[in-house]
């Protein structure tokens, strides 16, 4: 029985303190915006509703189905929450889930919590919401269109979260981008299929029993700001990874050493290798991975489009 299945919870020790602090800063800003937005949307219902839905996501992560060879499909839930509740509410719900996993169950570190909230809460929710809405505009709002849109959105949300996590690890010098990016992207391309199947299954049930809930989720405010925030955040992370800054980004140790005036001593072996190992690798495989993920996304979305269009005609 596992309650937090995805290998996305970064523990402490993997991110440099400076990067971790930056993550906390972003996370607090976005949480505050999200709180204000949902307050307007829900009023004093906000706390009980968000709290119970966060507990729901946590519990739903225990629901699995066997895939093959002892592995099983699990749910992360960011995209599902965003489809049902809108982007800002989903970001809050996932923030609560990820925080509890770190605070109480040691799933993900306390200092790394800022980035974990951004990766698994904010980015998955926003990416899922934006792509779900975008696809619906394309292929209509029939039942099957909603189901395939939910699949594609959930798959993409996992991929976005995983890529962000890989880049953060690379920026911290924990895992070179050449390895981390392709590895995380490909593993989560598989995990994302499970996520997509579960999410679309849930949407199918909701469409059959309570379509009003799905309609309310689509009317939830904040589409444009969410697009900007998610797009900006993701762009910032990717740019940070590919800028020349990344290769010489100060390690937490170096940063403190600089502050303490210890840099001269620290220039010796332990630190000398640090700055330059990313440069030769960063260009090629990383770019190809991003390219591969983009192509994969296009494929998933085109299939969703074809299936959605095809079945929609049948229904008519």
């Amino acid at each position, binding site marked *: 029985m596992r*309650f937090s299945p995805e290998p996305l919870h970064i*523990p402490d020790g993997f991110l440099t303190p400076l990067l971790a602090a930056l993550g906390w800063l972003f996370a607090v800003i976005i949480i505050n915006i999200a709180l204000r937005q949902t307050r307007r949307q829900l009023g004093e219902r906000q*706390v009980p509703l968000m*709290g119970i839905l966060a507990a729901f996501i*946590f519990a739903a992560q225990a*629901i699995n189905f066997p895939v093959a060879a002892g592995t099983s499909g699990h749910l992360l839930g960011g995209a599902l929450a965003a489809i049902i509740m809108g982007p800002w509410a989903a970001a809050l719900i996932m923030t609560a889930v990820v925080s509890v996993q770190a605070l109480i169950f040691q799933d993900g570190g306390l200092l790394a919590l800022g980035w974990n909230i951004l990766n698994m809460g904010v980015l998955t929710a926003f990416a899922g919401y934006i792509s779900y809405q975008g696809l619906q505009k394309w292929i209509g709002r029939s039942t099957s269109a909603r189901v395939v849109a939910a699949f594609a959105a959930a798959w993409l949300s996992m991929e976005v979260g995983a890529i962000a996590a890989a880049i953060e690890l690379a920026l911290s010098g*924990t895992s070179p981008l050449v390895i981390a990016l392709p590895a995380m992207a490909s593993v989560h391309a598989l995990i994302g299929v499970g996520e997509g*199947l579960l999410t679309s*299954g849930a949407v199918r049930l909701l469409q059959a029993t309570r379509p009003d809930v799905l309609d309310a989720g689509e009317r939830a405010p904040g589409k444009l700001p969410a697009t900007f925030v998610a797009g900006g955040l993701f762009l910032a992370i990717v740019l940070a990874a590919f800028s020349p800054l990344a290769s010489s980004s100060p390690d937490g140790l170096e940063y403190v050493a600089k502050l303490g005036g210890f840099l001269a001593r620290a220039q010796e072996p332990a630190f000398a290798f640090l700055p330059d190992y990313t440069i030769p690798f960063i260009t090629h495989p990383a770019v190809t991975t991003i390219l591969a993920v983009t192509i994969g996304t296009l494929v998933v979305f085109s299939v969703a489009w074809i299936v959605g269009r095809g079945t929609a005609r049948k229904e008519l």
Partner: protein
Amino acid sequence: MELLEKNSKVCPVHINILDVYHARQSRIHRLDPRAKLLGSLMVILTTMLLPEGAWLPQGILFGLIVLLSFASRLGIFFTVRRSFIAIPFLLAALPLPFLTPGPPLWSLPGLGWVVTSTGLMRFLTILVRTWIAVQASIILSATTPASDLLWGLNAFRFPRLIVAIIGFMLRYLFILADEALRMLRARASRSPRLAGIKRPGLIWQSRVSGAMVGSLFLRSLERSERVHAAMLSRGYDGEMRRLYQPAFRTLDWLLLLGMILILCGIFSLSYWS
């Protein structure tokens, strides 16, 4: 009967999710949650800021954790036993020994991959840092009830509403988790694996599981409406209040001061040696 036993192994009847907190009578348990939060954050920061390969200071830090775990009457190796949760993530750092340039140490037989001492050092440092950080937060959550922990976050100017939401989540966590377990048990008892009968396909299974997620959501939504109505009828006005307020006492100050001294000592040790 055998099937039933097998199922109860697959699907436990009830999970007490909140059993991470271990109630004991100890000085550490009685500390102010703010002091404990600050203390664990300081330990985590220290282990992360220590230079690579500073094994002695890290060892002292580990000794401190063992000491705290003993002082909180959890047993000396309580944290060690529970600290393996972060291990799977180490896969992410596994390429480091091979990809960091440095003096070659050892070559992987067959593949010819070279392990460098610099890379190995980095990898081991990450391993130790993660291990110590996890143990620090295990002590925190094993000695502090979740509600106190949240109160501490509130006191540190954490966004008040998100803390209220998390508090609400914790209250309903085990109810909804049990609900999920009941659904899993129902599914398991209706779908035994029988010899000679083909397993249903992946898509079909995932659709069933997805429907379970969907109906769990509907139950949660309806429950939240009931809860909200009940709260309103009892005078809820959007504000979560708390009667008992922990207070910072001498012992809390002493602990914090002691921690700061010890951690400073560890730091200076790592830079002198």
